[in-house]
């Protein structure tokens, strides 16, 4: 099953790699959001470090939403999804494959976004890089897992681009709140143990929703 999942993910990533339009737009979009934030605050009144966790997470939320919206859009062209469903792979492996591809996509955008964020807002992330990456990874897995499931549904509805954020944001907010709190603790130079509670909640959220989406996904693709 994992092999099938990997094949699905590889196909998606290959399509992405060949064209590179989506990933490039997502990266440019991330940079633009960071820019908007820079001009959206008064630098003399609000210190960058106070606002930093929010900036980071709002940027990542938007970038993830952009990535998820295109995940199943790709499959709707020329009935590619029907072809995928006809292939002798289980529905759950298709989900895992999509999840891996989406995670790779979002991770790439975040990998570009994080150093730029540190650069633009003069935030020292190198001392806490390890724990910070852990927080980002845990939060990203959680909302990409739910988002991949939801995008499979919204892709085939009317006003798909609008419906996905409306459905997904209530589910993104709890992990986002925990991630922002953990990030704030880390950037303020507190030890990782202080953010331990939030990290455990994030991990629990990941386990519950990856499992749930794995079992629910087959119900979203029609037979």
């Amino acid at each position, binding site marked *: 099953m994992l092999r099938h999942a990997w094949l699905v993910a590889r196909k998606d990533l290959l399509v992405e790699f060949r064209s590179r339009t989506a990933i490039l737009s997502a990266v440019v979009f991330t940079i633009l959001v960071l820019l908007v934030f820079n001009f959206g605050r008064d630098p003399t009144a609000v210190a960058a470090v106070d606002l930093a966790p929010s900036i980071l997470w709002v940027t990542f939320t938007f970038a993830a939403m952009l990535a998820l919206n295109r995940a199943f859009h790709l499959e709707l062209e020329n009935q590619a999804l029907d072809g995928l469903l006809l292939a002798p792979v289980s529905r759950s492996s298709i989900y895992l494959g999509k999840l891996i591809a989406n995670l790779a996509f979002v991770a790439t955008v975040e990998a570009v976004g994080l150093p730029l964020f540190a650069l633009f807002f003069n935030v020292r992330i190198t001392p806490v890089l390890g724990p910070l990456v852990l927080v980002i990874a845990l939060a990203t897995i959680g909302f990409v897992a*739910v988002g991949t*499931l*939801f995008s499979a*549904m*919204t892709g*085939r*509805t*009317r*006003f798909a681009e609008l*419906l996905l954020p*409306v*459905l997904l*944001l*209530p*589910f993104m*907010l*709890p992990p986002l*709140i*925990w991630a922002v709190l953990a990030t704030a603790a880390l950037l303020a130079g507190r030890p990782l143990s202080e953010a331990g*509670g939030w990290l455990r*909640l994030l991990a*629990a*959220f990941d386990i*519950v*929703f990856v499992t*749930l*989406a794995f079992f*629910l996904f087959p*119900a*979203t693709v*029609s037979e």
Partner: protein
Amino acid sequence: MKILKTGRWITVSGLALLAAVYVRALAFTPVERTQGMAQKIFYIHLPSAIWAEGAMIFVGVASIFFLFLKDARLDRFAEASAEVGLVFCTLVLTTGPIWGKPIWGTWWTWDARLTLTLLLFLMYVGYVLLRGAVTDPGLRARYAAVLGICGMSLVPFVHLSVYMFRTLHPQPIVIKPSAPSLPGEMLTTFLFSFVVFSILYVGFVTQRYALALLRERAEPHA
């Protein structure tokens, strides 16, 4: 239609009893010492809050069974319960600020409980929107079931974080591990009100269920 009539009767008796709840709450229940009359809204606020969350759990449970049994009745019930849950959630979000203004001095704060009730409200809205956006009935039922199960699974996380944040909201005084710390007479009024709200929930859901049934008969292919 029998089911619609039954629903109407349950709702009407529920509404009559709601008036009785208010007579009891205003005239025969002691006034809280520090909050004064503002505390009376508690008898609407908490029962609605319990049913706002309870309805989501029923949506989730009905959705799980729907995915296994493919029974249209479960789907209709989930739809009805979600819409009624949305109404109760709206009640919580309206009565909360009315109490908050005199007691906290502000209509709204970004307190954990308030935020999470708002999340629940948005989940209900999302659920209703998703149902409206899918035209094929079979697909709609399955999509809604998936969303319903996810929604139900989010509720425990919401609760966990409520206990982890320091919050401005009054701590639970009725539903908590130890015995309720509410004075006896207030507790009686609250329990009475809770029973009435349960009757209202059943009445509303029954009527909404009948409506879904009527709609299916009117447009068999829509």
